[in-house]
């Protein structure tokens, strides 16, 4: 049955599908592709179900290989961009703790941490906005240069405020006590 399907190009057994690509692999560009289970796009979306089903349409099998990592591309440049993407997410999670944490703690260390985290997160966020909306050869470069300068200046300003004035957390509390 399975060989018939194989010949028709319709179905393959899950074992013959996953093994060669998850373990040996294939070394695209001499690199091993890791098959992240979560990102395999199967019809059911449930790994346990897939294992039980044991048959997967061929087009899904190809997609499983092609989407090894949602943010990974074979080119080295893009592979690092995937790392960058992950760091951006860790920082966003960190902000959830840093914003309320620094307001509660009111220490100078957390004030500087808050300044850095806010500016870096905002910089990355605005960078993706610019990349999305500003096209062309020169314009994006100019816009990004303006953004980086603004971020740098804002960070210096916030540090200066922490150094020479009451600090971010106390400032927020003072505004909120109005």
């Amino acid at each position, binding site marked *: 049955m399975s060989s018939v399907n194989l010949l028709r190009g319709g179905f393959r057994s899950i074992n013959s599908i996953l093994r060669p*690509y998850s373990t040996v692999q*294939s070394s*695209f*560009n001499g690199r091993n592709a890791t098959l992240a289970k*979560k*990102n395999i796009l199967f019809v059911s979306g449930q790994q346990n179900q897939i294992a039980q089903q044991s048959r997967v349409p*061929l087009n899904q099998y*190809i997609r499983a*290989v*092609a989407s090894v990592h*949602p943010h990974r*591309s*074979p*080119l080295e*440049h*893009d592979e690092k961009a995937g790392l960058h993407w992950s760091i951006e*997410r860790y920082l*966003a*999670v960190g*902000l*959830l703790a840093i*914003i309320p944490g620094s307001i509660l703690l009111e220490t100078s260390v957390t004030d500087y941490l808050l*300044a850095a985290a*806010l*500016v870096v997160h*905002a910089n990355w*966020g*605005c960078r993706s*906005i610019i990349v999305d909306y500003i*096209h062309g050869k020169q314009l994006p470069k100019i816009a990004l240069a303006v953004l980086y300068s*603004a*971020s740098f*200046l*804002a*960070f*210096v*300003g*916030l540090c*200066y*405020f922490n150094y*020479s*004035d*009451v600090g971010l957390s106390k*400032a927020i509390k*003072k*505004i*909120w006590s*109005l």
Partner: protein
Amino acid sequence: MIVNPATRILFRNSKNLTLLKSRTNGYSRTAAEESRLFWEKNDKLKRPMSPHLTIYRLPQPANLSIMHRGTGAAMTAVVFGFGFGSFLWTGKFDKVVEFVRDNVHPHVILTAKIILAFPLCYHALNGVRHLVWDSGRGLKLQTIHKTGYAVVALAFLLSLAIGTL
């Protein structure tokens, strides 16, 4: 043209085999190239922007998505503005606060606080929603609608609570 087996099967019946020409390493294009070509083609064909923003009514997820972007950009303006401003009021922040207290009606201040709190509450809550998506969860369309309404409702309540603190 060297093409890895998976890509070869993927494009076996495809008329788009020209896609593969730009790379010799077995992959088609990078996302950046893809995006550049997309915009070049749109410009060349003088295509209008899609979706047509004055005609097409955005679905709820798209509205919330652009709100995430809007609140992020607005807060960036506030944070960066405060950063730049700190050179202007060096060591005089208390005086600035007093000036506002003396010159602005309390009701206006209360309203301003709620208006300031809302973008942060919405963006933070919706940011969590984004992070959950990024982990591959909550991506069913019905779920997306439900969490969307939940985030907006919670953001309203939270900003009222924080604003009146």
